[in-house]
């Protein structure tokens, strides 16, 4: 491949088609960003595409001064951080142990851990059990149940299998404990897969809302996505929140933030953190898929 130096007609068509697809992918986000940066009054009457009408940071100021939204943002950040560490540690430890094929009972334990991938109790038994565990309106409900995905363990195991056993053995001869070998040798060599798993878990936690809808009625514990869902679906909530934000701004000559602008701004805030992170991890998760595809 790559023998031909000049671009053929086919190459040009491919580039054009791809550019069009990229535009379709990006446009909704650029539009929302432009809207959130626009003066509320002008956004309502002018047609916004990708450029703000009457650039202002006022909407962001209103959103970041709103204690309900800031609280939800904080809850999401906390649950994501805690969830990533918790699930990452459990999965990595289990995957490392599962690579020890000579360990008695290895296959049995692996099977035990993998079965729930294919058969689950389902929504209602889980709901009832969560209630019995007294996790309703308890922030731990966002973290404790999501400690282990067998699928992630299989990905990590595939990676751990590629680490030469000689490395571990020489460390053990030097007197290192199993835990030390895991922490000081296996983990540092596994950054690609650790980052991939952390990203999978992080994105999942960041975007989660269903558990909040099921188990949480205390507004102080709402995560950002759930609050956003309510803002988008219930027009009264966006009106109330916008009105709260505008109270302080009364009489300072600024355009008040409209419910629409508040929606757009909250939507952008709940999206940007992930958008900023995933491109840096791209080469890792692609490598992860490569290992999977070659093995499959």
């Amino acid at each position: 491949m790559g023998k031909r130096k000049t671009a053929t007609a086919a190459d040009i068509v491919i580039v054009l088609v791809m550019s069009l697809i990229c535009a379709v992918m990006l446009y909704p986000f650029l539009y929302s960003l432009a809207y959130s940066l626009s003066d509320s009054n002008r956004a309502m009457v002018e047609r916004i595409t990708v450029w703000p009408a009457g650039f202002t940071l006022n909407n962001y100021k209103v959103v970041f001064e709103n204690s309900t939204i800031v609280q939800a943002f904080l809850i999401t950040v906390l649950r994501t951080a805690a969830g990533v560490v918790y699930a990452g540690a459990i999965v990595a430890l289990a995957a490392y142990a599962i690579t020890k094929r000579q360990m008695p009972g290895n296959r049995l334990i692996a099977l035990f851990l993998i079965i729930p991938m294919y058969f689950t109790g389902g929504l209602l038994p889980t709901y009832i059990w969560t209630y019995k565990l007294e996790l309703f309106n308890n922030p731990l409900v966002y973290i404790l149940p999501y400690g282990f995905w067998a699928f992630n363990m299989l990905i990590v195991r595939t990676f751990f299998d590629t680490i030469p056993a000689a490395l571990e053995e020489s460390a053990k001869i030097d007197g290192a404990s199993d835990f030390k070998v895991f922490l000081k040798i296996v983990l540092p060599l596994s950054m690609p897969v650790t980052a991939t798993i952390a990203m999978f878990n992080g994105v999942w936690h960041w975007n989660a809302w269903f558990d909040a809808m099921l188990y949480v009625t205390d507004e102080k514990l709402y995560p950002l996505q759930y609050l956003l869902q309510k803002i988008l679906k219930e027009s009264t909530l966006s009106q109330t929140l916008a009105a709260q934000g505008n109270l302080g701004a009364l009489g300072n000559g600024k355009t008040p933030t409209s419910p629409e602008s508040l929606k757009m701004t909250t939507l952008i805030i709940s999206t940007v953190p992930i958008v900023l992170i995933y491109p840096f991890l791209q080469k890792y998760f692609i490598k992860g898929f490569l290992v999977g595809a070659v093995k499959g």
Partner: protein
Amino acid sequence: MHKSRRGWLDVNAIKKYRSMYLFLLPAVLVTVIFSYVPMMGLIMAFENYKPRLGYFHSPFVGFAHFREFMTQHDFYLAFKNTILLNGLMILIGFPLPILFALLINEIRFAAFKRVTQTITYLPHFISWVVVSGLVYIFLEDEYGSVNVLLQWLGFDSIGFMREPKYFWGVFVAVSVWKEIGWNSIVFLAALTGIDQEQYEAATIDGAGRFQKLRYITIPGIAPVIGLMFIFTVATIFGANGSGGANFDAIYNMSNPLVMDTALTLDYHVYMAGIRYNNPSYGAAVGMVISALSLFLLLVTNRIGKKISGYGAF
């Protein structure tokens, strides 16, 4: 090692790996508490479960709830919608990422290729809450960009999110938009695994772009296509919570006006079991979904193994 060939009751071997058992303990605990106990909880599907009475004292009713949903209009509607909507998703949503991967693979400019990939992965990372928010904004009757475009082209505006007949089309289109890039990764990975010498040999023999595609590329990724097809078909009942018309997507995208086409099985479980407070009925339907998913997985896996020699397990 030589004398420890006596299976898993070998005390010396168990001692040797004792820290490994300790490493597995948290995973086993979490799995028991949050997966196996709810599985046991499926007993409630055979009871008239009352939280006050618990699993042991709620009245046992046998298969009453299973007979009940056979008579429920909503269950049939949800079953039909699940099958048809997912069928449509497979018909359209499955081939497109393969096509997309082939197109990306044909890009000769490395930087452009990388940027294209990054941009098309973006929607995958966005929550369904945000995506549905955007969909409702863009498909709004008067000011939504899509209807503005339609009117500009001389058509009438369409009530995309108000009429049941449009829901499947919108849903499939949005799902494709969200996942086409992400779902192409695995095929791209398979493409890079094809031996490059085959292409060089074909070039020498005078093969063109399409001949190479037909005789080298497609056969080269066929096993991965087969494997992914098994996974896709096996998850149509949404029990695994991902892929297809899953609850997260359906709940956010739908509204009461389009329920006739938007009601799927796991939505039905949620509505009947939790909203209308009939937990045993919900558990019964959930159990059937779970069993159907498992059955589908085993069947498709068997077929896949027969055809291509590849299976998921």
